[in-house]
């Protein structure tokens, strides 16, 4: 309603494409940092990723397999603040702090692998459906609808159960369940972007439809996928931890869901720390990525992007 003209912004004469793209990136980052919730999300992410990367420095890695929880038989279920175990131990002597730190690394591994897998599969299938259209689109979308009709967690649960409990199987189960989301987003975006006149303009100058896909359609369709991927970095750890909590992962590994599950038996006896701290980590991890993802969506949303 406010018909304030966009008008040319007084920008210095830039001499190279790189500097302009860098300035553009700077503009986006600046807009991101303006929103307090996004900054909070970013802070959580940096802290958690830092924990994951510097795990060996924070706590001595367990030999032979750093991902197995070290047992301190002398201190079974000691409360937080006791010597050597700032956050206490589980009822089998596992140090909770060690579990948190190395659990962060497991979660990072899980989310990075699953997100990259699902984005790749989803974007490919979505692009084929969106770009080809017609019968191919119809069939692919029916398959996607079938996958989407089974609630995420229950589907992953069934796959992991059939494959047998193991961390690797959880990754596989999550990949099979989560790729459809990206296929649907990508297809919708491509059909939306295909209508824009700059795609017609590219056809008029005689560019090949393959190059039009990579130069015009993909770059303008990828934003919602990036936003969803950021959100899923959080959601995948959430669902993964739930699967481990239910018991589909290997006992004794440094994984937050497993720790919460093992700590659960001590609750009625008042031993709350073994479940509370790992559960909180899952929450912070998911919260961080969700907050940052939400902020990213507002900034990258084409409506706001072009009106700046």
């Amino acid at each position: 309603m406010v018909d304030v003209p966009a008008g040319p912004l007084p920008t210095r004469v830039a001499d190279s494409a790189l500097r302009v793209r860098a300035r553009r990136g700077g503009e986006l980052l600046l807009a991101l940092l303006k929103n307090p919730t996004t900054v909070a999300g970013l802070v959580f992410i940096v802290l958690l990723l830092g924990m994951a990367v510097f795990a060996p420095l924070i706590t001595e890695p367990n030999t032979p397999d750093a991902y197995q929880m070290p047992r301190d038989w002398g201190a079974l279920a000691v409360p937080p603040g006791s010597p050597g175990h700032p956050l206490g131990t589980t009822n089998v002597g596992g140090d909770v702090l060690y579990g948190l730190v190395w659990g962060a690394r497991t979660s990072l591994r899980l989310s990075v692998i699953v997100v990259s897998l699902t984005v790749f599969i989803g974007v490919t299938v979505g692009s084929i459906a969106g770009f080809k259209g017609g019968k191919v689109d119809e069939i692919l979308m029916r398959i996607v609808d079938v996958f989407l009709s089974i609630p995420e967690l229950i589907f992953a649960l069934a796959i992991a159960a059939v494959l047998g409990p193991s961390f690797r199987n959880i990754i596989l189960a999550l990949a099979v369940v989560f790729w459809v989301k990206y296929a649907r987003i990508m297809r919708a975006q491509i059909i939306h972007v295909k209508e824009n006149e700059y795609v017609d303009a590219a056809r008029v100058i005689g560019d090949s439809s393959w190059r039009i896909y990579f130069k015009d359609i993909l770059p303008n369709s990828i934003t919602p996928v990036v936003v969803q991927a950021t959100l899923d970095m959080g959601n995948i750890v959430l669902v993964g931890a739930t699967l481990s909590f239910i018991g589909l992962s290997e006992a004794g590994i440094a994984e937050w869901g497993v720790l919460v599950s093992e700590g659960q038996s001590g609750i009625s006896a008042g031993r709350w720390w073994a479940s509370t701290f790992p559960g909180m980590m899952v929450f912070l991890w998911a919260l961080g990525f969700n907050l940052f993802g939400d902020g990213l969506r507002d900034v990258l949303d084409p409506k706001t992007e072009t009106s700046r």
Partner: protein
Amino acid sequence: MSLVGGIEPKAAPQARAAIASVRDLRVHFRSKVGVVHAVDGVSFDIGDGETLGLVGETGCGKSVTARSFLDLVPRPPGIKAGGAIMFRPHQACAACDGAGCAVCFDSGRAPESCHSCGGDGCERCGHTGQHTVDLMSISGSEMQSIRGNRIAMIFQDPGKALNPAMQIRDQVAEVFFQHRTADLLDDAGLFADGSEPGGSLLRRKAGLRTRRAEDVILSLPPFRSRRGRLMKAVETRIADALAETQIPNPRKVMDRYPHELSGGMRQRVMIAQALACDPDLLIADEPTTALDVTVQARILQLIRELQQRHKTSVLYISHDLSLVREVCDRVAVMYAGRIVEAAPTTSIFSDPHHPYTQGLLAAVPAASHERGRLVAIAGNVPELIDPPDACRFTGRCPFETSACLANEPQPAAVNGAHEVACFIHHPLPGADDAPSFDRRVR
């Protein structure tokens, strides 16, 4: 006086004061890059029964000015930075009780006498003796009683201005329920003897206040027939309003949804809804821009006819000069948040004074302009962020001088009703290099 579709000119009620006078209106917007002075000191009058055209290009502030009448500018980001809009609402004409007579020029409406001075003129009513309110400062409830009742508005895209998920009947009925509750009850013959079973519920129904649960109660046998009578009363009024705007078969249209009607038909429903309570002032925000040429012509003729018949004053917002020439009695040209020129239609088109108006008229691709020789005003509309105290057309004006850069020209009369805000016509006393038409800069 221009005429459309062969309607002869009408006698303008000169005796009465302007229906609305805008005085130094300022509306600014807080944006990411600073405070935008979208409307920055706008003043004009709308004569009683007159059609005033407010013309300007995108971003000149014409739409913000129009919406300020009904306080529809969202705050934030909008800021009421100053000025006043004095409005003189009418009431039913005492002589003919609204039927229309010579006293009220057949409009059925006559001005209210000023509450504070009883009609002999005082400060509050701007010495007009007529009841006056400042739309920029009245209370919310008072504004509500004016919106849709004394001042109505029609919008640019009728497709968007009607609620897509609501039948035409319910949308138009809202105006009657909101402003004509008592009349509806009388029409339905309710409360004739002072009380009715379930009276309070019926009153709330007639005033749009009932919740879903109360509606259910009202549909039960003891109240059903009374509710039926009330609905029949409002439906007759809706049918009359729709028929007024030449909508064929109004009863059938009432049951339709907006997306089932054509663009022209939707605009007619909007106009029927606006004129339902016979307002004193109709604000038309580019009502025909989204319509085809032939449909636009019919809608313009309809607006003109209704304006003549009901003597409604009209504030017509548009960016199309040749359209405004056909519809309006007077025209005010806006540029960058200010009025640069205002005059009767005939004189502003035949003898434009302000360089911007001249540039605009020369830029319209009319037949008489040779191809390729259109006068294209150079440059772009200026950024209105904390604008300097100078004429806003500088940087694009062919005759500008240092005087124009130093201070802001105020609108002043040139001859009779023709006002212009330019130092060429009103040179500043003592300014050395006053601009003139024979000294071109670019």
